[in-house]
């Protein structure tokens, strides 16, 4: 029997409701016709008996190619039902026999693939898990390192700030230093001059007193009796023994020279005596130690200077102590 006749018989039976079919009749018809065309293209005109597993397989693969993908379940089912029909009607044995193992092989193959796929998936999941763990660990590590870096930066900032602070102070100190040095020099020279004031005062006193001694100077009082060992060493013996009065003018002149030397020294440091004798009393410069009434002398005129005053510019080193006319 021709394959075409078998198909028509099958469809007729199907129409009579003898066969249960998985697909819609139109689709089924279409599919079977397509199968017929495929078989006839292989060996025309195709006998039902010619059907073999090979033809079915080639059809299925052809179908797969054309439909791009696996043959539809309905296609396979339709073919399977059709072959069942052929076997039931004893029309052919071969096709189904060939078809069923081929299907089982495919299924096995698919199962195998599925298995492999599952294994692969499992593997992938494990790997993904490991990877996630690693990433977390690395992230934490990085976080720790970042913390350390922050700390280091902070420490550097502190050091830097401290360095800057010290540098600024150092620069300030350097700046101050030159001014300070000058000021210090001024102050030290003033201190020395202050210490020298009693010396120059002594000279002044000696000069003033000697000048009033009628031109004669007596022998020093302490020369013989001095207890101080320094004095014993330094007092000139012959002066002590030669107690005769001496001419005083030259002595005074000599002492004046010494005084002037000292004054010149003072001047070098900017210290000058405050003029007083004959001047008018100025409370900013002079300190009154006494007031005396005199006829014919203008009040506030300075009559006597008891202690010479000194100044450096505007700064008073020592006030002049004066007796002033009332």
């Amino acid at each position, binding site marked *: 029997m021709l394959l075409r006749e078998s198909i028509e018989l099958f469809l007729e039976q199907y129409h009579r409701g003898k066969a249960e079919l998985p697909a819609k009749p139109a689709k089924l018809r279409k599919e079977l016709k397509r199968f017929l065309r495929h078989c006839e293209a292989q060996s025309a005109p195709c006998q039902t008996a010619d059907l073999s597993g090979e033809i079915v397989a080639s059809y299925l693969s052809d179908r797969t190619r054309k439909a791009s993908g696996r043959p539809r379940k309905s296609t396979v089912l339709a073919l399977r039902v059709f072959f069942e029909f052929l076997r039931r009607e004893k029309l052919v044995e071969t096709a189904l026999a060939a078809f069923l193992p081929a299907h089982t092989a495919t299924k096995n193959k698919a199962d195998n693939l599925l298995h492999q796929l599952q294994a692969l998936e499992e593997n992938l999941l494990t790997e993904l898990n490991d990877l996630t763990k690693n990433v977390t660990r690395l*992230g*934490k590590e990085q*976080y*720790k390192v970042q*913390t*350390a870096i*922050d*700390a*280091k930066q*902070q*420490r550097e900032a*502190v*050091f830097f700030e*401290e360095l800057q*602070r*010290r540098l600024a*102070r150092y620069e300030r100190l350097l700046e101050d230093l030159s001014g300070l040095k000058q000021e210090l020099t001024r102050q030290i020279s003033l201190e020395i001059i202050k210490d020298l004031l009693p010396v120059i005062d*002594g000279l002044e*006193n*000696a000069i*003033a*007193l*000697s000048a*009033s*001694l*009628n031109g*004669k100077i*007596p022998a020093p*009082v*302490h020369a013989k009796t001095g207890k*101080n*060992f320094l004095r014993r060493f330094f007092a000139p013996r012959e002066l002590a023994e030669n107690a005769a*009065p001496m001419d005083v003018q030259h002595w005074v002149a000599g002492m004046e020279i010494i005084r002037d030397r000292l004054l010149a020294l003072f001047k070098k440091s900017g210290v000058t005596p405050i003029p007083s004798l004959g001047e008018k*009393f100025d*409370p*900013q410069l*002079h*300190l*009154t*130690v*006494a*007031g005396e009434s005199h006829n014919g002398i203008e*009040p*506030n005129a300075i009559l006597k200077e*008891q*202690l010479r005053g000194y100044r450096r510019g505007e*700064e008073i080193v020592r*006030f002049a*102590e004066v*007796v*002033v006319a*009332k």
Partner: protein
Amino acid sequence: MTKIVGIDFGTTNSEVAIVIDGKPHLITDGKQRLIPSVVGLSPEGELLVGQAAKNQYILHPERTVKSIKRKMGTDFRARLGDKEYSPQEIAAVILKKLKTMAEKFLGEKVEKAVITVPAYFSDAQRQATKDAGEIAGLEVARIINEPTAAALAYGIDRGEAHTVLVYDLGGGTFDVSIVELNSGVIEVKASHGNNHLGGDDFDQKIMDSLVEAFESKHAVNLRENLKALARLNKAAERAKIRLSDHPFAEIVEEFLAKKASTPLHLKQELGRNHFNDMIGKLIESTGESIDRALKDAELKPADIDKILLVGGSTRIPLVREIVMEKMAQEPHAEINPDEAVALGAAVQAAIIAGEKVDAVLVDVTPYSLGIEVAEFMLDDIYADRYSVIIPRNTVVPVTKSEVYYPMFPDQDQVRIKVYQGEHKTASQNVLLGEFMIDKIPPAKDEDDSRDIVVQFDFDVNGILNVNATLKDTANTKSLAVKAARQRLSEDEKQDAKAALGAMEIQADDEIAVLLRRAEKMAAALKDARDREEWQGMLTALKTAHQKGEAEKLAELREKLLDKLYELE
């Protein structure tokens, strides 16, 4: 912000001070620290204040006013030329001068002041002082008692209750006050004194003795010789100051006078013992004032927590001795006694202005410094005794000397052992060093005590220079040792602090950063329970850190790190 200054308005001198950066400073006019409390009118009609007014006092007493403080609160009218003024107006001139000084120093306006008055001042006297301030253009933020100011300068207002005795011996006035300070409440419990006792009296004593000695030696009376008297007055003051730190003062005034055609010189040595004899009665009378003040306050010496010495004359060793004897405790004099009241007024001013105030810090010797000696007591010789030359809490740098004698007539060498400490037995203190002074000539006669002057120079670097000299000879030996020194300067302290801070960070930087982050995170946590747990962890970490438990710390740190990472 307007600055508030502190003013010590004194009988003889006045001062102004201010707190800058937490530190009280005395304001100076050029080099002048003290402004004489004198006001005058020059013949040209110029108003004179301070030294210039003092300069004309002898010439124009009718145009010059001194010691106006004694007249505050009375109807006294002070004459200045043709016009008369109230004490308030005169005082105002002085206060105005201080205000101007402060403004010049600060470079800004000064409109407020704290002014000090003696504790015994009546309300009328206080009001008059306040008025004076107001006339001078100063809003008087407060009138405070001088002893209170001194206590403030010493920072005693801080902390628990204190009862303080302030012994104030100045140039011309003396008073002793007992002040109770209790958490900001200050009460003067008693005050006694002598309005006319002070350093000038001690100068006068020395002067009198010089004049007498001169008269007995040369038969020349110097009392008529104005110039000689003026010189002696200064010499006496210098000697008095010298005797505060040295056992002898040499008074030399060449060409002081003449007799016929002979010039006469004064050259005399004044020992501290002799000076103490001269002023002993006067100083002892201050001891009576202490007794009366204690009685009025119903207190015993032991009830006094602290004794403060104020006023320049408290530098005299005898004053210190008598106060110590009366009170059986060591008085404090670390702050310049001339400045303590003004500095304390500045402290009060800063407190009113709400500024931070540090205590007045000075470098002091933390221990007493002295040498080993033997003492005769009731004919017995006690060896290994300790003779203090520089008492503890003395401001450095300082130079002090004392005189000692060889024990036996034929002794020709003396060992000087230098100690640091407070124990009366020398060897119980810390030995700093020792040396020998030898070749001491044998005593010529019974009076020849062969004085050995031992001088201690203690500098700011903590170096103690000890020098022993056989008096009036070139026989001298010296030794330099390193002694303990207290308190760093502000700058040094800053540096040390910064260095320490940097080091701390270095050791625990990671923990610190972690904690900071964790705290920030904790603040951001919404859930209260989370926050609590978080805080618990932080506390545990901090505790472990403080206790130095390394293992626990590492574990907690890891835990915290995980948590932080998770959350961030």
